[in-house]
């Protein structure tokens, strides 16, 4: 019994990292109608950034996170300006090529510069755990979980109670009407993309203490994120967060009780089951909401 509770809690806590990756992905998809295939590579770049900040200047990953957020916001603005904006009114497959192309470039740049070796850092608190009723709660995982939840709540308030947030939702729901309200849709796109990228950057920094970085590390996370985004309902932040925790849970449970190699098969089974009964996802509607 104890072991079950232990595994459930570990799984849910780790879901926080999926939440941070998928929130940005679903936001970009819901608002801009763009599937960002390079999303995992932004995570990879954030992991390397955190890694080198730590190796070269001994910066703590959690301190690095504070620098990574604004840095990745700028990175997001830049990539939106250079790659996304010129292709916005092109057909969807052009977006696929642009973002997939960026993903391949970033992966190979990383391979060229840092080789394919797994790199990790050692921080003393990586193994810290709190013990509550015989359940061990790993400190870095708890941080990931709490930040994931706080980000989701914060983003909800931002989208509902600020002018910029409202403009983002308006653009997602009806782009032409947003233009007619005087909303600068291009600016909204840039900000949306930058927010998505800075959240995945934050995720990278928080992940570094308990994970290794290598050029293709983004893939497995973005795979989960895609499942979470579709399972939660395209554009639904609440859906993506809940689906992320669900996947984290299924993954850990199946990894522990059956075999780590079947975990993907299992969460894909859950995914298909959800889509069978709710084709638009858990919180999806035919229209998109951010």
């Amino acid at each position, binding site marked *: 019994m104890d072991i079950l509770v232990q595994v459930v809690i570990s799984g849910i806590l780790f879901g926080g990292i999926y939440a941070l990756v998928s929130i940005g992905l679903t936001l970009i998809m819901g608002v801009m109608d763009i599937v960002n295939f390079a999303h995992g590579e932004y995570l990879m770049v954030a992991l390397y950034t955190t890694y080198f900040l730590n190796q070269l200047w001994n910066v703590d990953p959690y301190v690095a996170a504070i620098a990574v957020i604004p840095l990745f916001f700028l990175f997001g603005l830049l990539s939106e300006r250079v790659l996304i904006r010129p292709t916005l009114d092109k057909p969807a497959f052009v977006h696929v090529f642009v973002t997939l192309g960026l993903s391949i470039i970033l992966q190979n740049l990383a391979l060229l510069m840092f080789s394919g070796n797994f790199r990790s850092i050692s921080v003393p608190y990586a193994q810290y755990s709190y013990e509550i009723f015989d359940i061990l709660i790993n400190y870095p995982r708890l941080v990931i979980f709490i930040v994931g939840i706080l980000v989701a709540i914060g983003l909800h308030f931002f989208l509902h109670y600020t*002018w910029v947030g409202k403009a983002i939702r308006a653009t997602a729901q009806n782009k032409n*009407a*947003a233009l*007619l*309200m005087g909303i600068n*849709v291009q600016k909204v796109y840039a900000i949306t993309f930058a927010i998505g990228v800075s959240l995945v950057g934050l995720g990278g920094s928080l992940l570094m203490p308990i994970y290794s970085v290598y050029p293709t590390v983004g893939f497995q996370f973005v795979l989960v994120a895609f499942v979470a985004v579709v399972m939660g309902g395209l554009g639904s932040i609440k859906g993506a967060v809940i689906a992320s925790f669900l996947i984290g849970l299924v993954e850990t449970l199946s990894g522990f009780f059956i075999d780590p190699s079947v975990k993907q098969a299992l969460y894909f089974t859950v995914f298909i089951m959800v889509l069978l009964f709710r084709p638009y996802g858990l919180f999806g509607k035919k229209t998109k909401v951010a």
Partner: protein
Amino acid sequence: MLALKNLRAGYGDIEVLHGVNLEVNTGEVVALLGANAAGKTTLINCVSGLISAVEGQILFAGKDITKLPAHERASIGIIQVCEGRNLFPDMTVEENLELGAYSVRARRYLKETLDSVYQLLPILKERRKALAGSLSGGQQQMVALGRGLMSRPKILMLDEPSLGLAPVIVETVFQAIKRIAETGSTILLVEQNVVKALEIASRAYVLENGNIVMSGKASDLAKDDGLRRAYMGI
């Protein structure tokens, strides 16, 4: 207030407007009449900047705005209430109205404008917590009108406000437009419903295949035999 000079516009290679001249003065209600596909919506979209003019000029308060991007036109007070309502379906009525006041110019007066819109269109106050997408067609049209007013428009362009509404509802919507007009607003009313439009307009233009074929005082046009035969079925 608004003047179009020899305006040509279209989609791709297809020209829809072949040199249109039109003028709306401050405080006036001007109707733009015409059948389906005459180019009415193209004209209004061209003024809002959703499509760009190929040739000619759009003057607003004496300034050439032909090249101004759409969102900037909205912020200087050129407000379109578009065909098919175009609401934000997953937002409440009140959120839709607030977004009407998005521009810095209008945002300062948000509270006051909201109160006056609620006074003018009481149904909106009643349904302010409802999601816009859940309302009936007539109520959605009211939200669209209210959202337009929230922008504190210098000129309000209404694109077919009666489209797709039942006759009883059309009556209510036109009552609302009349009340808006009585507050001294400048309105360009695009309509297929010629009888209704001429009732509240002071002047009117008739657009046919992208050309203005007739214009004048609304009361004169209402008596015109050609127009009556072509558009009123009498």
